[in-house]
């Protein structure tokens, strides 16, 4: 894995395949917490952290528990107890979604507890966003993409997770900046609030289509 491939991967995750505006993942927080730049920033930071960590965790789960390889933990256990088994019998990749959700939810819960105890100020700042991320499809999406579709190695998974978080934060910040200004604008009554936000999201998505021309 070269430095160039890392750059290509992160540019891809941030701009070309932006999680919100190109893959349409994590639209709930994109609409829900983009009213203020401050909260958007808090949410973005929380997402970057959780995405990076869960990308690493889920990669470990995927490689050592779910894939039918020589290093599958269950296969090794059965083998040491003398059962005549082959790795192909331990293909649990269909458990991916449920296992990943379990891991991410448990991890976020743990992080929340630790932060609440050790850094109350940070906990106050992140507030409701940490538990919200537990079931954020963007986080699960990163895990799925890293393992199932893109077959990345450990380091690449972490880079992809981090970059996806950055891409999410950028989209959220852009959106919140626009929405803060639109709050004061003279908009027809039926379109005020969420409706106009959907228009903006669509327009931004079209704008991000322009990045699909980037080639490495």
């Amino acid at each position: 894995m070269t430095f160039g491939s890392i750059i290509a991967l992160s540019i891809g995750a941030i701009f070309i395949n932006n999680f919100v505006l190109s893959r349409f993942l994590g639209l709930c927080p994109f609409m829900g917490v983009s009213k203020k730049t401050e909260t958007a920033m808090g949410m973005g930071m929380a997402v970057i952290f959780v995405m990076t960590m869960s990308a690493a965790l889920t990669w470990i789960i995927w490689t050592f528990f779910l894939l039918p390889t020589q290093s599958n933990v269950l296969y090794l256990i059965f083998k040491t107890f003398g059962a005549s088994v082959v790795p192909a019998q331990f293909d649990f990749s269909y458990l991916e979604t449920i296992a990943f959700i379990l891991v991410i939810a448990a991890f976020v819960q743990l992080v929340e507890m630790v932060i609440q105890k050790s850094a109350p100020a940070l906990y106050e700042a992140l507030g409701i966003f940490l538990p919200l991320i537990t079931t954020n499809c963007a986080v699960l999406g990163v895990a799925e993409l890293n393992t199932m579709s893109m077959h990345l190695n450990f380091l690449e998974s972490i880079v992809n997770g981090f970059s996806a978080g950055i891409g999410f934060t950028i989209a959220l910040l852009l959106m919140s900046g626009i929405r803060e200004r639109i709050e004061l604008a003279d908009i027809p009554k039926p379109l005020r609030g969420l409706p106009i936000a959907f228009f903006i999201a669509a327009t931004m998505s079209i704008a991000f289509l322009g990045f699909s021309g980037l080639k490495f």
Partner: protein
Amino acid sequence: MMHYAIIGALIELGFFGLLFGIGLAIAAKKFAIEIDPRVEKVLDILPNANCGACGYPGCSGFAKGVVAGEAPVDGCVPGGGDVAENIANILGKSVGETAEPMVAVAKCNGGNNANDKFIYEGIADCRAAKVVAGGQKLCPYGCLGFGTCVEVCPFDALTMSENNIPITDFDKCTGCGICVKICPNDVMALVPKNAPIYVACNSISKGAFVRKSCKSGCIGCMMCQKNCPSDAIHIIDNLARIDFDKCTACGICIEVCPTNTILNKFEEILAQNNGVPTAVPINPDETKALLAKIKDEQKKKKEAAKAEALKKAKPQSEPKGENRA
């Protein structure tokens, strides 16, 4: 082949579940945080409007602050005396003198009476209008009239009057002061709920400029200060200000004010005028009689002073005359 897949899946998910379950249980014990049960009790009592008048981000913040002893027991303005008493009971503290209930009023009666400096066609928001050369009104202190205070009021207590001035529904207003904070010209102010008379002007410009910019601004003519029987109204920086502790609501200042700047928000007056404070004393006849009396006394005093001055002047001149002689 088949049973390995089933058993393996059960083992794996069971293992994950067990591991995370135990892990989280241990973590919950290890990282447990003690929460004061009184915080929840106080939170139940509070109005939960999250208005922020107490200075905390919301009611839950204030509850924590009160229990920690950082916030005063009667810090919740919209809650008033009852809430303060209940909180004090929970915490075992006593309420000091509970603050007098306050309401917000607009210290401006300009609106359509106030002249424009230019025609503003931007975003219909006072804060935005204020940024453009200090607002479109010629008077730099008055109400800009875009109703930002009306929008932010969490209790729906403000509306814009026909004169394009925010008027308060005094039954709904809790004195939380959000409109006071949001107004870019500091037009909104809190006054005691029981004090009926207030000065509806915010301009500290000199009288001549006020005359030019607005038909109902305070020109600092001193009429109210000269005639007030209880020394409750004073002109400070070209603007009349009422000392609510001294004011007896006699209405003389309203009667003598040449620009109708001093308004009355007495209940009956409001009922007669669709809730709009008006420059009418509570009992016009009584006020007129009182005013006549005061003018009479002033005349007598003046005459007495003149007479005394004459008396003093005479003995001074007499000894001079003797000296000359």
